[in-house]
């Protein structure tokens, strides 16, 4: 029997020790009419057969290695150094659990502490937790945190350009709360200033937004704080290798989708929800946190800390119900940031910037094509002279995934394509894309 080491004779000996004739006796309390149902899920298969079946499914999917790839939209094909996979796949990391026993979990604990340290630098914040499920849930929890911190205030301002799936997640998370969620189109500062009354709980800014556009953050924090709200910035962590940190813009809470930091796209998950905040809000923050301490001999060590916020102590009064973290995704991000370092992440961001802008400039030269205005980092919206979905399909046949047709989320925006260029797209790739766009749009 797969993965069961108890042999038949051992089983007999165990049953004798327990004084029962059959293991069925262990289940006597289960309603007899429902006990031991037949399961219509087929017989067990061998390793070869299972892997062959699953490999045949995997082959039906397009993967980034087989295409010139310009698809982003919240899940990005950044370079993942091979060492990330080699190290994060070590059994001691993969098959451990939450570090409840710190003496035998220093590997996991120190890695999280280092992750917290590096992400604090990256975001320009003081405190980082050990991660959320993904960027969207991190942002949702940041809003809940703001609501807790600004008791009685219930207005949330969200930019119009937020990722549509994020918006749905926020609505789901906020369903049980008495809040007013408003969308704004202006700059964050103007939106905050326009708030009437004293009910602003939080204003969110996306840095950049779903369409790739960067907001004007100058004055935003001041304006939000003036209205008594919390300023939440959701950022692209790779961009922060080059662009000013949300902390430097006065953010109270920073969230981010950390998939880009050393994690594969994985058809959408697991991802990595980054959350960082200020010392002032530290004890309001949900999620696991690792702290430094010393052992009985005075040796440095790491432990889960500030657990008084958490559900296993506070139960219904906990700041959140979250009780795990994306441990392996966090570890991958940690290894990634360690390998990249100061120079590498900057260079990565520079490559994204220059290549994306080269690509946009070349596309803008094509007859009938126009690039959306505004500052962008690696992703930008293009209006085509034709239907984006149809064009994308044509290009996919030529092994180019040209981007995301906006009609995926906005049925009326048929001629728009969201194009993402990363450090993995060479000039030759870009030139191929541009040529293919030209040809397909004729």
């Amino acid at each position, binding site marked *: 029997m797969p993965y069961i080491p108890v042999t038949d004779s051992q089983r007999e000996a165990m049953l004798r020790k327990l004084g029962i004739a059959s293991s069925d006796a262990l289940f006597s309390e289960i309603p007899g009419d429902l006990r031991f149902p037949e399961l219509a899920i087929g017989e067990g298969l061998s390793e070869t057969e299972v892997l062959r079946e*699953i490999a045949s499914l995997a082959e039906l*999917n397009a993967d980034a290695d087989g295409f010139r790839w310009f698809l982003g939209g919240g899940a990005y094909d950044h370079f993942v150094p091979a060492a990330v996979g080699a190290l994060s796949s070590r059994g001691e*990391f993969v098959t451990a659990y939450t570090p409840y026993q710190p003496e035998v979990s220093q590997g996991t604990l*120190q890695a999280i502490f280092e992750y917290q340290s590096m992400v604090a630098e990256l975001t320009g914040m003081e405190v980082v937790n050990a991660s959320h499920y993904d960027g969207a849930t991190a942002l949702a929890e940041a809003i809940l945190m703001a609501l807790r911190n600004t008791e009685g205030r219930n207005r949330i301002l969200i930019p119009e350009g937020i990722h549509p799936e994020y918006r749905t*997640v926020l609505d789901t998370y906020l369903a049980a709360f008495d809040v007013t969620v408003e969308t704004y189109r202006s700059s964050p500062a103007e939106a905050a200033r326009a708030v009437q009354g004293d009910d602003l709980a939080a204003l969110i800014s996306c840095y950049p937004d779903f369409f790739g556009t960067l907001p004007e953050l100058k004055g935003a924090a001041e304006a939000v704080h003036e209205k008594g709200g919390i300023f939440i910035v959701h950022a692209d962590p790779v961009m922060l290798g080059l662009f000013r940190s949300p902390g430097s813009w006065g953010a109270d809470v920073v969230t981010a989708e950390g998939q880009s930091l050393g994690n594969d796209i994985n058809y959408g998950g697991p991802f990595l929800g980054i959350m960082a905040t200020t010392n002032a809000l530290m004890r309001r923050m949900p999620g696991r946190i690792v702290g430094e301490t010393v052992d009985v001999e005075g040796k440095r060590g790491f432990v889960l800390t500030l657990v*008084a916020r958490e559900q*296993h102590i506070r139960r219904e009064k906990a700041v*959140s119900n979250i009780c795990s973290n994306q441990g392996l995704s966090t570890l991958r991000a940690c290894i990634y940031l360690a390998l990249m370092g*100061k120079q590498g992440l900057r260079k990565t961001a520079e490559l994204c910037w220059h290549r994306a802008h080269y690509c946009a400039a070349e596309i803008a030269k094509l007859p009938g094509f126009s690039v959306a205005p505004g500052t962008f980092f690696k992703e930008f919206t293009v209006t085509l002279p034709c239907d984006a979905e149809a064009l994308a399909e044509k290009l996919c046949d030529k092994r180019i995934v040209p981007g995301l047709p906006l009609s995926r989320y906005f049925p009326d925006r048929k001629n728009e394509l969201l194009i993402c260029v990363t450090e993995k797209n060479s000039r030759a790739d870009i030139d191929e894309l541009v040529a293919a766009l030209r040809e397909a749009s004729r």
Partner: protein
Amino acid sequence: TETPLLYEMSVPGRTGTILPKLDVPETALPKDLVRDDLGLPELDELSVVRHFTRLSQKNFSVDGQFYPLGSCTMKYNPKMNEDAAALPGFRRTHPLLPETMVQGAAGLLFKLQEALKEIMGYEAFTLQPAAGAQGELTGVLMIRAYHQKKGDTKRVRMLIPDSAHGTNPATCTMAGFVAETIPSNASGAVDMDALKAACEGEKAETVAGLMITNPSTLGLFEPNIREIIDLVHKAGGLVYGDGANMNALMGIVKPGQLGFDVMHLNLHKTFSTPHGGGGPGSGAVGAGPALKDFLPGPVAQREGGRYSFMHPRESIGRMKTFNGNFSVLVKTYAYIRTLGKEGIRRAAEYAVLNANYLKELVKENYPVAYGQCRPCMHEFVASPDLGNGVNTVDIAKRLIDYGFHPPTVYFPLIVKEAFMAEPTETETPETLEAFAAALKAIAEEARTNPEILKSAPHHTPVRRLDETAAARKPVLRYKQQ
């Protein structure tokens, strides 16, 4: 020996990656947006490899040690499942591709939904929730939406037995309900009188539902489960099942048939995907007739041989971006295909057999607090009193010296000095016997040399750590001097 922090090894000018040269014309950077304060460490690739290799060796793990952490189902994580999840067609494919380009991924999700429906006895499943706690939130939000849809807004009381995981009341709060604790009786089961009092008469119309774990966190099957569910249903409430302990029951009984309206699974526990030091997991949720239309989307479906995604009619929305923790789901699917119908049942059967065997081996010094005369399910909760001031924490720390990961301790809260051991079906009787022998030796040490327990562990990279100081003056990141 101490492993320095990355920052402590950093030397200006180093980098651990080899990036392409710039091959396009430069575009001027917006000067006012560019930072010059990126305080990341600077290391070469070998130093990083050595650092994380050494860190890894400081962990106990299932691959290295017996890890009987109660309620966590630390069973063996088959290596073949890792290979399956690492296939480029899964690892490198994108959730926003047109459905025609991801038929394999969509197909796998559909097949997995079908298998889980069958194993659990549900009409529909979502694979989206990223963890058990998120699965709980999903289930409870669905209950909320159900009552809302009926305009039944008075139903705000969520009943929760006192043995529940802390996530249950916390989730309840996040979903806008008021948690109301139902006590356990002397045998560790739900106190039926208390439950009746909470559900009947005037109180009935404010009952939103019940959140219950079965087997309970005491490792005991809830003997009155059908009656309990009936009581709640009669009051107009719905029953959420916390599936954390399904490793005792898969293939043994279908929770949907027992009457649970909605239930989450911890795929990383029951279906053997690795725990990853805390995640990612997956908290897939199944629903019966009352709630299936409320599931978050997207849900995979098959139409005429093609796979696609749909959003249920009354969907609560979505719990996260895209399609759940997909690579965890690939591992789950591989596991189910490998075990098949017989293997699924056998896994539960041997998990329960192993737990009862271990319980029997240690009962002299580590008696269970509740249900002494009943079989336990996949785990048991002992309440040891070894004397000489030895606490459960001392036993746990001393087990480390013997090479074992300690069980879960001090949970559930209703058991004094709780010691909750879950051996799982993937361990050998020899390992259980060695563990029992260590526990016996520890009981002896408690009599003869309690100090060795109080000062344990002795051979770990660090010894007992000052958790109070950590919380009082938090140091949560490295700071350059």
